[in-house]
């Protein structure tokens, strides 16, 4: 009698797994397929080359900025339009909570690792997958880092959990609607792309 709790058949919109339209297992399988596509695109865009990736810091190659911002904007517009059409319930989409201190510390470590090793975690697997030695070593280092973090968790637990801001959205912090913020972000991204192309002309490098 109390068994009927969530009448999942009544819900015909995303997120698919949260609303019980697809199973957890199918969700994992889809993630696997999408992952293969993601890896393929990364490799084909040259993200398995650490020299190409590091170009963003020197201005001779800004493919990282362009690919990731284009990806983010496509995703953002997609979600906003899907929500507009009633295809997805944005309030059910998981937003990773912001822990301010660990975001800053982690960002610094990640940035330093990026410029020293020439990879970010995802692209290091991309490089390792096609047998790049620096990619393999980077992946090794990644696991050592994970081990150090896990074994010494007690030492940095306070830092790690500090300043939990919940899941704030920049648009609501600024008091803008999601749509207006999206437009501003698009304009900012286009301005950055323009500046990036200017930098590529200004600091060209023949071979890398």
């Amino acid at each position, binding site marked *: *009698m109390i068994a009927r709790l*969530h009448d999942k058949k009544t819900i015909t*919109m995303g997120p698919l797994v949260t*609303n019980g339209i697809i199973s957890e297992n199918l969700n994992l399988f889809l993630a696997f397929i999408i992952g293969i596509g993601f890896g393929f695109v990364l490799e084909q865009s040259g993200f398995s080359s650490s020299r190409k990736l590091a170009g963003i810091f020197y201005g001779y190659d800004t493919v990282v900025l362009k690919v990731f911002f284009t990806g983010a904007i496509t995703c953002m*517009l997609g979600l906003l339009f899907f929500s507009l059409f009633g295809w997805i319930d944005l309030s059910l989409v998981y937003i990773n909570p912001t822990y301010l201190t660990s975001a800053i510390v982690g960002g610094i470590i990640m940035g330093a690792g990026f410029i020293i090793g020439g990879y970010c975690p995802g692209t290091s697997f991309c490089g390792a997958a096609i047998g790049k030695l620096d990619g393999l070593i980077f992946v090794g280092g990644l696991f050592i880092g994970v081990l150090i973090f896990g074994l010494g968790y007690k030492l940095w637990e306070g830092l790690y959990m500090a300043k939990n801001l919940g899941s704030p959205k920049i648009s609501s912090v600024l008091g803008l609607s999601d749509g*207006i913020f999206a437009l501003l972000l698009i304009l900012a991204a286009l301005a950055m792309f*323009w500046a990036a192309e200017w930098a590529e002309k200004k600091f060209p490098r023949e071979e890398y």
Partner: protein
Amino acid sequence: MKPLKWLALFIIPLGLVIAAVPPNTAKPYKLTADQLLAEANTRTQYVTPDVVADMIVNKDPSLQLIDVRSQDEFEKYSLSGAINIPLTDLLSEKYTDILNQDVKMNVFYSNGTVTANEAWMLTRQLGYSNIYVLEGGLNFWFDSILNPQEPASTSPDEEFAKYDFRKSAGAVLGGGGAIQAQADQLSAASSPKPAITGAPKKKKVAGGC
């Protein structure tokens, strides 16, 4: 044309559209009339007084009784732990958090079942889950829990088990059965508090998004 210009030509209009339209705040999963009718026909919204009594006695934290009668009636008599949301205030914003959640089991009750069912229909229509109605309302509650009738001696054992449970639950919840139960106990010289026996098994509220 350069790729950057193509990109700009494509995403700036999309950005303008999304900035111009109001965000979609429509409640996503409303039930259609057909779906609601199907639910009403299967009568799955009803929870029997026995289940509710058992949950009250065991102080089950997942139970949230909601009295949809007027405040006057609520103050005169209410089930223990119930909160009062008069039907007239059902859609008031201050109650949204209580009604629209997926942790507790919201059980509406009124004197009969008409008002509680009205509340159930409205909230189900809004897409809220875990909404139930106390079967038979308070009238049936009085008859079954507070003043249970002893079954005929030829009744099956389950009827007696149910009766025993109702009698002892009624005693705890302050019904007329209490006197009878106490009298029974005095003669039996058992523990001072009536024990709850033969409680019907209840299913746990599980899931959530």
